[in-house]
């Protein structure tokens, strides 16, 4: 096994409900993703998949446990450092693409670079255009998200996630909003990026067929990971 890009050790997450009651949503998650792996995260609705992804994406902090990204510890560091770590290491793809409606496709893809105050606009533009052609949308660069189909929007979101060449991409139901055909295309695209660029993927999906095509599968039930084998046998039944 190569160097881990992500290590979770006994990660717990509780939410306060009202003022006094706390519910634990994740109960001690242990997970290690090796660099360059292609991973699926499945589980019933409400099992905590999005919560786990948001923790890994450093969008929120675990209640307890250790979370290491690309060898960086994430406990006891400031919000600004978290933001920096996130920007450098993680690309997001969400179910509802979440493109910025005021910007065209090219600008949306470039946005992570714009946020990080790129120094060479020409290089950034060229890179963004090459990403757009990689996701098959070279000609649509000037279009606003509202002028594009759901599948196209998701492709742009993937291109955007790739913009800063992050080692890890987190996708929360990237195909959840698409028809089977479009979903398959998006899945293939991600697989291809994983194979050609060695970027690690962690994909939340409800689609067991797609999950089956992943290298590693993690199954979350009621906030706890079950063994992939159980999952596999469960799938067989």
């Amino acid at each position, binding site marked *: 096994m190569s160097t881990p890009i992500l290590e979770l050790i006994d990660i717990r997450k509780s939410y306060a409900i009202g003022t006094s009651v706390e519910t634990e949503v994740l109960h001690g998650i242990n997970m290690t993703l090796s660099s360059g792996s292609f991973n699926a995260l499945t589980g019933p609705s409400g099992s905590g998949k*999005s919560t786990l992804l948001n923790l890994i994406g450093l969008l929120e902090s675990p209640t307890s446990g250790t979370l290491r990204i690309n060898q960086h510890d994430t406990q006891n560091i400031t919000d*600004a450092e978290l*933001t*920096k770590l996130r920007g450098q290491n993680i690309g*997001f793809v*969400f179910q509802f693409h979440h493109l*910025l409606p*005021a910007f065209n496709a090219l600008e949306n893809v470039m946005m992570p670079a714009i*946020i990080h105050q790129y120094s060479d606009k020409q290089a950034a533009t060229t890179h963004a255009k090459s990403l757009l052609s990689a996701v098959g949308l070279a000609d649509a660069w000037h279009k606003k998200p509202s002028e594009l189909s759901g599948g196209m929007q998701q492709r742009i979101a993937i291109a*955007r996630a790739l913009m800063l060449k992050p080692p890890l991409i987190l996708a929360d139901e990237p195909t959840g909003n698409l028809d089977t055909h479009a979903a398959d295309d998006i899945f293939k695209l991600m697989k291809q990026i994983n194979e050609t660029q060695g970027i690690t993927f962690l994909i939340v999906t409800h689609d067991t067929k797609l999950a089956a095509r992943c290298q590693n599968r993690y199954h979350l039930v009621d906030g706890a990971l079950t063994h992939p084998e159980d999952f596999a046998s469960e799938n067989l039944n």
Partner: protein
Amino acid sequence: MPLSFEWLLAIRFLKEGKMQSWLILAGVTGGVAIIIFLTQLINQLQGTIIDRVLSSQAHIVIKPTEETTIRQQNTLITSALIQPRGQRLRSIDQWENIVQLARNTPGIKAVSPVATGPVFVRHNLASKSVALLGIMPTEYTKIVNMYRYMVKGRFDITGDQTVIGTDLAKDLGVTIGDRIQVTTEDNQQQNLTIVGLFDINNKDLNKRWVFSNLRLAQTLLNIPGGVSNIDLAVVQLFQAKQLAQRLKAQTGLDIESWMESNSGLLNALSNQTVTNNLIRVFVVIIVALGIASVLVVSVVQKQKEIGILRAMGAKRAQVLRIFLLQGAIFGTLGSTLGISLSFGLLTLFSLIYKSPDGSMLFTAQLDPKLAIMASIVAMIVGILAALVPARRAARMDPVQAIRS
């Protein structure tokens, strides 16, 4: 140099919320325009009023000490009997020394000894009670520029020549070349030849002032070699009171500045200024609240986008700056437009509202200092107004934004 992230987002977000942006821009523009317009209008009108008042009036007048006050100090018994002696004209003691003192006082630009007193003028059957003003033209015209007001003839009072107002000339039925007879209270008589008519924009003075040279007036008014008052002009109008008090302390004479003799006017003007300041403060508050409320709404609307930006690595400080910039943009753009609008309003007003004689009540000019001040204040107010919404945006939890 690429447009920075904050600028790009600030401008795009503003363009996206077109309606809101235009409305608040209109609000800021209107607010700035009102403030500048009112301030400029009031400053100019106040300036015009003061100019008018002072154009026919000395800034400081030195008179002999009232005798009554001296007597009061002498005895208590007689004080009950005192009446001002008013009737007989008195001269200022050692007035040449006072003139010298005034000339040597910094801040005083003109000193004019005057012999003035009530007389009757007669022409044929018409007779009027007027004020004879005996002056030294070179000095006096530095205080009241009579040359400017001449409508007929010239301002020349050598010998037995006189210059009177247009209204008096009409009342007496006289014009240039005519002779009028002056009779004093002591029944001294003197004929004067009219060589000029003036119109000083003041009907009362046009009827009352009859000029002669100082020498002649001294004789007629029975104060040979004396002067009844000394008129002064100062460099800084609003220093007049202070200078008058200083001279009063030095000479013990009865000295009054225009600021005291027109205290009612000055009071009114300062009340006007206070009102204007109040209006300004309220407009600033309203504009600030307008900007703040638009941005609060905008932050809520952009919640999701802010969450995505944060997920992509945007720092809290960057998000904060996006909205502060929007406030600054509203302030700066609004003040620029507001300044133009106020200039337009001033031009319009200066064309519509004129003084009764048709001259401009005020000119449509903008004080650049005021404009710069307004721009800076508007920008700062914009930023301050944006502070609360911007902090709210920066503090927003990206997860909540994305989940919702």
